[in-house]
C-alpha cells in the first residue's frame, strides 16, 4: 500500500501529466490488498486484504523522507476476525467505527481504538449471498447498506442486525449468475439514497425508505466496478472495466464527463475511484498498476 504526497512532483521534461513518487510504503498484508479507507482526519488508514485481515495504520507525516528508518509502530493494529478475503471497508464519518465485508459471508463492525475492537459481526441469510461491498448510511448513521454478489442489497440496523429495507433487485431469485453481481454500493451523503454499481453495466439508485429503484441507467460498456459521491452530494463518479471513468450530475443523472483512463489487464481495467474531500480532484486506480489523479 503506498502513500503519496501530491505536492511533491518530479520534474519531467515534456509531459502532459506529472510524475509522483510515493512517500511511504505500508507493508504488512500477506497477499493482495483489496480495499482501503481513511478516517476523516487522515491520521489513520485502514486496509483489507486477501489474507482476511484488516490493518489499521498510522499515517506518517506528509513531509517524511521516503527512505527513512523503518518504524514498526506505523502498523497500529491488525484486526483478525474474518476468515476469508476482505473486499470492502467503510469508515464512519462521525464515529470512530469501521465496517468490513468479506468473502467469508460476514460484515463486521469494529471500533479500532478500543480494547475489544470487534463490536459486532453480521451474517446474512445464505440466500443473500456473499457481501461484495458495504457502506454506512450517511443520512442515518445507525444503518448500513450491504451489497451482495447475488445482486441483492439491503439496509440493516447496526444495533439489531435486522434488515430494515431490502432494496429491490430485478434479478431472478435463483439467478446468481455472475452478470447480476453488485460490485459497489455507496450511500448518498445527505439524501436517503443508495447508489449501486452492477456487473451488468448499470448504475441503480434506490430509495432507502421504500427500497425501490428510483432510477436505473446503463452507465458503461462493461461492468461498473466502483462509485464515489462527492462530499456535497452533487456528483457521482463511476469507474468501469470498460476503461473509462465517468462523472455524473446527480440531479439530472447526465454524464458530464468521460475520461478514458487505464489499460486492460485480462478483463479488468478500473478497480476504484474517489473524490478528494476538499480539493477538486478525482482519482482512479487501475489494473494497469497506475493510480491517476485528475483535476
Amino acid at each position, binding site marked *: 500500500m503506498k502513500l503519496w504526497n501530491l505536492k511533491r512532483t*518530479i520534474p*519531467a521534461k515534456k*509531459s502532459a501529466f506529472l*510524475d509522483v*513518487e*510515493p512517500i511511504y*510504503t505500508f*507493508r*504488512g*498484508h*500477506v*497477499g493482495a490488498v*483489496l480495499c482501503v479507507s481513511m478516517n476523516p482526519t487522515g491520521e489513520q488508514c485502514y486496509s483489507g486484504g*486477501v*489474507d*482476511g485481515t484488516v490493518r489499521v495504520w498510522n499515517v506518517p507525516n506528509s513531509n517524511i523522507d*521516503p*527512505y527513512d*528508518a*523503518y518504524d*514498526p509502530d506505523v502498523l497500529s493494529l491488525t484486526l483478525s476476525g474474518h476468515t*476469508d*478475503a476482505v*473486499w*470492502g471497508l467503510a469508515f464512519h464519518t462521525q464515529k470512530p467505527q469501521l465496517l468490513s465485508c468479506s*468473502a*467469508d459471508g460476514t460484515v463486521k463492525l469494529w471500533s479500532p481504538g478500543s480494547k475489544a475492537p470487534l463490536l459486532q459481526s453480521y451474517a446474512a441469510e445464505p440466500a443473500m*449471498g*456473499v*457481501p*461484495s*461491498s458495504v457502506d454506512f448510511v450517511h443520512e442515518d448513521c445507525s444503518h448500513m447498506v450491504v451489497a*451482495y*454478489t447475488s445482486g441483492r442489497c439491503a439496509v440493516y440496523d447496526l444495533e439489531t442486525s435486522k434488515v430494515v429495507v431490502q432494496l429491490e433487485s430485478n434479478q431472478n431469485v435463483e439467478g446468481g*449468475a*455472475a452478470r447480476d*453481481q453488485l*460490485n*459497489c454500493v455507496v450511500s448518498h451523503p445527505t439524501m436517503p439514497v443508495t447508489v449501486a454499481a452492477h*456487473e451488468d453495466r448499470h448504475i441503480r439508485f434506490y430509495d432507502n425508505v421504500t427500497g425501490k429503484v428510483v432510477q436505473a441507467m446503463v452507465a458503461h460498456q462493461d*461492468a461498473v466496478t466502483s462509485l464515489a459521491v462527492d462530499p456535497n452530494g452533487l456528483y457521482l463518479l463511476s469507474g468501469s*472495466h470498460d476503461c473509462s471513468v465517468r462523472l455524473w450530475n446527480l440531479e439530472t443523472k447526465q454524464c458530464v464527463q468521460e475520461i478514458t483512463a487505464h*489499460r*486492460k*489487464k*485480462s*478483463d*479488468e481495467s478500473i478497480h476504484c475511484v474517489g473524490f478528494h474531500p476538499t480539493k477538486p480532484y478525482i482519482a482512479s486506480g487501475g*489494473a*494497469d*498498476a497506475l493510480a491517476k489523479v485528475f483535476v
Partner: protein
Amino acid sequence: MTEAPIIRRNRPGTKQADFYGWPDELFEEMDSTLAVQQFIQQMVRRNPAAVDAILTAPEQQDEGVWKYEHLRQFCMELNGLAVKLQLGCQPDTCTQMTATEQWIFLCAAHKTPKECSAIDYTRHTLDGAACLLNSNKYFPSRVSIRESSVSKLGSVCRRVYRIFAHAYFHHRQLFDEFESETHLCRRFTTFVTKYGLMTKENLNVPILEDQAPAEESEA
C-alpha cells in the same frame, strides 16, 4: 445453459481459494498491452516451482521487455519476504546489511550511500526499485524498453539479490519458509544467470544444486 464467454476477473466477494479461478490463456491470444505481465503471472500461478518454464520467453518476444517484466514481478513477489523480515529482522540485531562476513552493503537509495540497517536496506531497495521500474524517465513504455535503460536492470538485480542473501545467512528459517512456497530465490538466480545480469561471484546463496562451474568469462 449457453456457453458464457470467459471473463477473467476477480470480482468483489471472491474467496481467497477461488482467486484467479479462470482457465489459462494462450500468450498469442492475449489482447492487452500488459500481456507479458499477464503471461508471467499465469505461469507462476500454474507452478511456481517450474522455474525454467516460467523463464522461457514466447517466440519473438522482445528480450528487453521480457527481462523488465520479470524484474517487476520479482520485486512485487519479494514484498512477501519483506513482510516476513519486518517481523524478524530487527534494526538493533541486524544493524547493517550483510550476507556473509565479507561485505557490508551500502544502501543506494539515498543521496550518498548510507549504511542502513538490514530491514531499512530491504525496504528502501524494494521501494527504490519500484520507483525506478515505474519511472517515466527511464521506462516510459512497457511495450518497448530503451537500450540505455536496460543497464539499470542489472544494478537493480544486484541490490535486490542481497535481500535474498541476507535472509539466507541471517534469517534462515524465514528464508526457507518463503522459498518453499515461492521458489523465488531459485527463479531469480536462474533469471540473472540466464540473462547475464549479475556476475557469478555475487551469487552467494547456494540455491542451485546443479550450479555448473563458470565457463565463460564474466563481463
